[in-house]
C-alpha cells in the first residue's frame, strides 16, 4: 500500500532584503522597492499579506498601504508624492495577516536622502 505524503513547509518569517536604494529622489515620482528573501519562505502566504511604507519623519503620514495579490511578489511600488524635507528615511513593514503571527519592520538605509 502506498501513501500520499504531503509535506507542508513551515512558514518562516525572515526579514526581506531590500535590494535597491535611491538617492537624489524626485519628490513626485513613484518608487519601486525590490526585495528578495532567503529561500522561498514568502511564497504560500495568505492573500491578505500586506506591505506598508512609512516615510520618516512622521509628518509625511498618512501611511501608504499596499496590499499584495497574489503572492508571491518581489517588488512593491509606492507613490510618495511631494516631500518637503531635506532628509527622510523609509521603512517597509511586512505583515502576514493571519493573526499577527509574523511581523517585520525593515529600515531602509536612507538616513540622508537628498530631495531634489
Amino acid at each position: 500500500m502506498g501513501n500520499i505524503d504531503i509535506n507542508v513547509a513551515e512558514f518562516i518569517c525572515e526579514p526581506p532584503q531590500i535590494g535597491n536604494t535611491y538617492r537624489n529622489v524626485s519628490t513626485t515620482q513613484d518608487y519601486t522597492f525590490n526585495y528578495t528573501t532567503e529561500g522561498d519562505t514568502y511564497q504560500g502566504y495568505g492573500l491578505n499579506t500586506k506591505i506598508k511604507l512609512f516615510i520618516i519623519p512622521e509628518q509625511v503620514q498618512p501611511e501608504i498601504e499596499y496590499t499584495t495579490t497574489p503572492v508571491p511578489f518581489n517588488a512593491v511600488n509606492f507613490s510618495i508624492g511631494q516631500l518637503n524635507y531635506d532628509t527622510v528615511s523609509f521603512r517597509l513593514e511586512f505583515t502576514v495577516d493571519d493573526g499577527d503571527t509574523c511581523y517585520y519592520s525593515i529600515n531602509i538605509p536612507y538616513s540622508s536622502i537628498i530631495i531634489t
Partner: protein
Amino acid sequence: MANIILNIAAKIFLNFSPMSATLIRETNNIVPIDLNYTSGTGQTMTTGQILYSFGTAGNPGFLQITSNSNVTLSGSGSVPIRVTSLPTATQANQSIVFQFDQSDIELELNYNSKPATSNVSISMPNRSTHDFTTAEFVAAYTDFDSDAMSEIKAEGNMTGYEYDLNGTGNYVAYTAGTWIPVNNITRLRYKALNQNAAYLKTNPWYAKDAQGNISN
C-alpha cells in the same frame, strides 16, 4: 466341453468440456466453475472430493480442484466444482489436465496480478494549494502484467482535499474512498492548512488496474 465366457462391457468415457478460470496472484482464490459433461453413466462426485491437488494449502503455489456438490453424472449436464489456489507472485498462465473416472478434464488457468502502489511524496509551501498530476501517481504505480492504471482513491482523514467532480471548476470536499478515473486526477487538489507550523499529511491510496484489480 464347456467354455468360460467372459462378457466385458465397453468402457464409456465421460466427455468434459474444457474450462478456464482467472486467478489473482498472491491472493487466496476460490473460484466456482460449472464443469459440463456428456456420456455420464452414473458416476458420482461428493462435496469436497479432491479432483486435483498441487502444493500445500496456505503456501504460495497451492492449487486444488474439488467437487462442490453431491451429484450423479448421468447423460449430460454440469457439475459444480471449485478451484482453490494461492498463486505465486510470478505464476505464468498454464493448462492442466487431470482425470475423473479415467476421463480427462482440461482446465486453462490464466493469472493476473493486483497493481502495486508506492508513496506519492509532495512538498509544498505553507498555505498553498497543490494540484495533483497524473504523473505523480503513475510514477508510484506498478503492475506485473503491465495493465494500465484506470482509477485511484484515497482513504483516511481527507481534510483539505478537494475534488472537481464534473470538471466545471466547482471544487467540493473529497470523500474518502471515492474512485477517481485516471484522466480526472488533475481535478484533485490539496489546500494546506492556514497555520505556520510545518506538518505531514499522510493518506493511503489505492489503484485499480485495467482488469479491475485493486492494489492492497
